[in-house]
């Protein structure tokens, strides 16, 4: 029995000028739940995502994380509460090595910040965690490679690993498989499935098969609203959802 929902989005709205990107979105996740957001381009998935991660502030409504109101918090403050995210467009430290990327992710998670004197290499806790991540995700061989010299597939993988550095309580994945080949997509999907079961995961995904493979529950968005919510059978049987995906208005 858990006292709080992992994530609780209540009546959230977001307007960009006159454009209503989100209208009265309500969504709750239990701890350890895996929810996939589906929806066509422009449905508001990424806007909802940014509202949860703090990159944009909701115009109305309330968002809470394990019972704590985070509606107005900055992204870094939300991250310190155990929320991690990936980006739809790969967002890594391109001119740094893979190891340095992970070091920074671990520094953020362990709050090793504003340390001016001792060299980075002397922080054993950070190094050990970064090395563990390298080993866990088969990145040892590319540890000293500059990220921009890696293949796109490898970069997408590191995009996810960065978010895992701090063992987040809740993980937001913004289309982790976008632009990947079927084989790479499969690998990333397997990677997400293999994550600890107590990690709450909210994921945006375009690939229906990947979505059904990972999700405990699915929410479908359209024109800034959640129009359907439920398990695979519910979603597959929903008339409105199939209309949207077949292009019928």
């Amino acid at each position, binding site marked *: 029995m858990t006292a709080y929902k992992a994530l609780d989005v209540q009546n959230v709205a977001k307007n960009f000028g006159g454009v209503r990107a989100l209208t009265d979105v309500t969504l709750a996740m239990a701890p350890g739940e895996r929810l996939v957001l589906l929806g066509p381009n422009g449905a508001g998935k990424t806007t909802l995502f940014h509202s949860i*991660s*703090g*990159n944009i502030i909701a115009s109305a409504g309330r968002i809470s994380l394990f019972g704590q109101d985070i509606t107005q918090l*900055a*992204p*870094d403050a939300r*991250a*310190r509460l155990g929320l*991690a*995210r990936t*980006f739809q467009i790969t*967002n*890594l*430290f*391109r*001119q*740094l090595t893979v190891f*340095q990327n992970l*070091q*920074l*992710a671990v*520094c*953020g*998670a362990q*709050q*090793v*910040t*504003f*340390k*001016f*004197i*001792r*060299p*980075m*290499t002397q*922080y054993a806790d*950070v190094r050990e965690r970064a090395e563990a991540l390298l080993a866990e995700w088969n990145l040892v061989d590319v540890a000293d490679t500059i990220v921009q010299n890696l293949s796109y597939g490898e970069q997408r993988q590191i995009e996810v690993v*960065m*978010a895992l*550095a*701090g063992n987040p309580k809740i993980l937001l994945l913004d289309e982790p498989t976008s632009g990947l080949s079927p084989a790479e997509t499969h690998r990333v999907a397997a990677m997400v499935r293999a994550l600890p079961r107590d990690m709450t995961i909210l994921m945006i995904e375009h690939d229906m098969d990947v979505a059904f493979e990972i999700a405990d529950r699915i929410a479908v968005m359209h024109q800034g609203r959640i129009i359907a919510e439920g398990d695979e059978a519910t979603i597959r049987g929903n008339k409105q959802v199939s209309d949207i995906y077949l292009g019928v208005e």
Partner: protein
Amino acid sequence: MARILLFIALAAVVFVALPFVVPSYYVGLTTKILIFALFAMSLDLLIGYTGLASLGHAAFFGISAYTIAVLSVKLRMSEWIAFPAGLTMAIALGAVFALLALRARGSYLLMITLALAQVVWGIAFGWRTMTGGDDGLPGLRRPAFVSDETSFYFLVLGLVAASTVVLVALIRSPFGLALQGIRESESRMQALGFNVWRHQFVAFVIAAAFAGLAGALYVYYNRFVSPDFLHVVRSAEVLIMVIIGGVGTLLGPAIGAAAIILLEDIISSQTQHWLLALGIIYVATTLFAPRGLIGLYRERFMARRKP
């Protein structure tokens, strides 16, 4: 690693032996190079490591110089008060600039820092009773213990070397890595739980402090301060030193400072059109060595080492 130690040892020998070998004119020139190397390195911390382009860096350099000159010449205070006061003013101004400018990025940040620096320049230019206006403030004496060229050179050498050690340590620290992360992606750093603004603010203040130290040394070197210390041309000049040497390398900007000052010394003895020459050098660098002299050296060096 052994190569680096050898390089440092060699540099130490050269710099310590220099005043006993070359005529005093060149000791003075080397002093100037060291001061501007520090100035350029302080700017590189912002541009090369934090990714914040500033075109107002002369403001920190100049306010420190003016504070020292005004306190010493006008108010007859000792250098033990004037020198720390100069650094304090540079740090305070760095904080003010950061508070006002850090909402902007890229070329907008460049414009805001330029505008803020011009305000400081305008004050130095207009407040004649205190600053002497465009006549400047002559009559500053070096502290008694460094009154001759050689001992002043060693003071500058010691402070610049110590500052370099501090800057290198800073860049290798978790804070330094975080600055580089911010340069690469602010949004990712935020998502990882870093307070990006606070890091940038601290970087700005540290850069201003070292620029202030350079300005303090330069006003004692020059024994005279004028609005030129604060002028946009000086901000641009130090920016060009950083770019010519190699952005984000620390050693590069120091080499860039040496190159520019030596060329200025040679060219301005022949012609009055030094700024024209500077412009041509800048264009040539961006065309043929976009990563600066250090980048050029590394490319050549790597190419030669390939089988």
